[in-house]
C-alpha cells in the first residue's frame, strides 16, 4: 500500500474551497426554486385527487404516475436532451428546474391527497350536520389538521429532493456535486473533497430532518 503523503493536501487551495461553497449556492437555488414550484403544483394536483368527479380525480395521475415511477435522471435527460431533438431548445437551468419541480409535485400531490384522506369521514359528517358547506369544512376543519400531518412528511420529501438535486450536475450545471468532481480531479484528493461535499449536503439536510422530527412530536395529536 502506498504511504499517504500529507503534503498532497497542499494541492487543495482556498480557491477550490471557495468554488465548492459558491456551487453550494447554486444547489440551494435549484433546490429552493424547484421545491417552491413543486409544492404549489403538487398542492393543486393533490387537491384534484381528492375530487369526487372521476375525470378530475384521475387526470393528475397521467402526470404523476410516470414521474413517480421512473428515475429522476432519466426524466432529466428526457427534458434536457430529448426536447431539443423535438425542436424545443431548452437550457440546462430551466430543464433542471422543470424536472425537479415536476418530480417534487408528483410526490407532494400524493402527500396532500393522503393527508386529507387521513382525516376520518366522521369529521365531514359532523361538519355538514352543523351546517357547514364543503368548502367551509375544507378550510376550517380538514385543512387545519391535514397540514399538521403533511408538514413533517413534506420536509422529508424536501430533504430527499435536495439530495436528488445533485443529479443536475449531469446536465452541465455547476452545482455542489459538479464542483466536487472538478476539484477532486484537479487536486487528486477525492476522499477529502467528496467528504467535504457530503458534509455540506449533510449540514443543509440534517437541521431539516431534526425539524421534521420535532414537528412530528409536537403536532402528534390523535385524530
Amino acid at each position, binding site marked *: 500500500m502506498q504511504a499517504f503523503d500529507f503534503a498532497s493536501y497542499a494541492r487543495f487551495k482556498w480557491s477550490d474551497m471557495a468554488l465548492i461553497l459558491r456551487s453550494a449556492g447554486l444547489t440551494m437555488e435549484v433546490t429552493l426554486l424547484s421545491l417552491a414550484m413543486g409544492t404549489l403544483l403538487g398542492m393543486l394536483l393533490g387537491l384534484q385527487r381528492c375530487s369526487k368527479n372521476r375525470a378530475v380525480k384521475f387526470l393528475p395521475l397521467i402526470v404523476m404516475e410516470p414521474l413517480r415511477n421512473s428515475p429522476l435522471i432519466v426524466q432529466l435527460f428526457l427534458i434536457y436532451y430529448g426536447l431539443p431533438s423535438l425542436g424545443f431548445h431548452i437550457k440546462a437551468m430551466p430543464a433542471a428546474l422543470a424536472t425537479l419541480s415536476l418530480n417534487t409535485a408528483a410526490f407532494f400531490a400524493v402527500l396532500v391527497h393522503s393527508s386529507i384522506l387521513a382525516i*376520518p369521514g*366522521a*369529521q365531514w*359528517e*359532523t361538519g*355538514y*350536520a*352543523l*351546517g*357547514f*358547506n364543503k368548502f*367551509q369544512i375544507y378550510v*376550517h*376543519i380538514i385543512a*387545519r*389538521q391535514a397540514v*399538521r400531518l403533511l408538514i413533517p412528511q413534506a420536509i422529508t420529501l424536501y430533504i430527499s429532493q435536495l439530495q436528488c438535486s445533485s443529479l443536475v450536475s449531469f446536465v452541465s450545471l455547476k452545482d455542489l456535486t459538479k464542483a466536487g468532481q472538478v476539484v477532486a480531479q484537479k487536486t487528486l484528493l477525492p476522499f477529502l473533497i467528496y467528504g467535504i461535499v457530503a458534509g455540506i449536503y449533510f449540514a443543509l439536510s440534517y437541521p431539516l430532518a431534526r425539524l421534521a422530527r420535532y414537528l412530528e412530536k409536537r403536532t402528534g*395529536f*390523535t*385524530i
Partner: protein
Amino acid sequence: MAMIEVKRIAKSFDVKRRDERTGRFVRDKLTVLKDFSVDFNQEGVTVLLGPSGTGKSTLLRCINGLETLDGGDILVDGMSVRDKRMLKKIRLTCGMVFQQTVLFPHLDVMNNLTMGPVKLLGMRRKEAGERARFFLNKVGLSNKEKARHNELSGGEQQRIAIARALMMNPKALLLDEITSALDPEMTSEVLRILENLAADGVCMLAVTHEMAFAQHVASRILFMEKGSLVCDAGKDEFFTVYRRENERIASFLKFIGE
C-alpha cells in the same frame, strides 16, 4: 303544519354482496325505507324504537339532509331537503348528534363550541364564548373549557357534542343512538343531561335502545320495523296497550329487558 313532514320517502343503499353460488361480488340494493311517512311537531321528546337495521338512523340522517332521498320528500319548516340551497337552514333548524361523536381534534372544547356560531351565524366571539359557557354549565362541564378531545371521556365528549348542537339554537335535536358506544355510567350521565334539557322544553327526536329513557322522558314513541312504521303512539299507550296487544312489540321489549 308540522315542523318536520316526512312524505312518502324511499331510501335504499347500494351494497356489495358475495354471491353464494359463484363467489363473486355482485351489486345489490338494500332497501331501508319504503314509502315512509310521519310528521313531527316541535314539542316534547319523540323516541324511535325498533330492531337494528330498520332505518331509524337513516330516517334521522335523511331529515338532516345527510342522505339523498330516492323518492318522496321531507319538509323541515317548509324547506325541502331536496333543495341544496336550503340544506344549511335545515341543518341549523335540526341539530344532530351522532353515536360516534367527533370533537374537532385541532380545537379545544371552547373553540369546538364557538366555531359554528362564529363562522355560520356571524356571532361575535365574545358573545359566542358566553353562550358556550352557558351550555357547558348546562351539560355540567364548565371546568373543561380548555380540554382537548383526547382528555375527555366518551360521555363527556357526547355531552360536549350536545352542547355544540345547542349552540346553533336549533328547533329540534336529532339524536342518533348517542349512548350506544358508552358504558352504563356514562350513559346515565348523558341521559340525565337529556332529561334536564327535555324539562327545559328542548324538542328532541331520539333513536335509542335505552328503555329507561323512553319510559321517563319520551312523550311519543315510534316503533319501526323493516323500514315501516309499526306503531305511533303516546308513551303511556305504547307501554300499556301496544305492549299487550302487539306481539312484535311485546317480544322486542322482552328482549331488551323491559
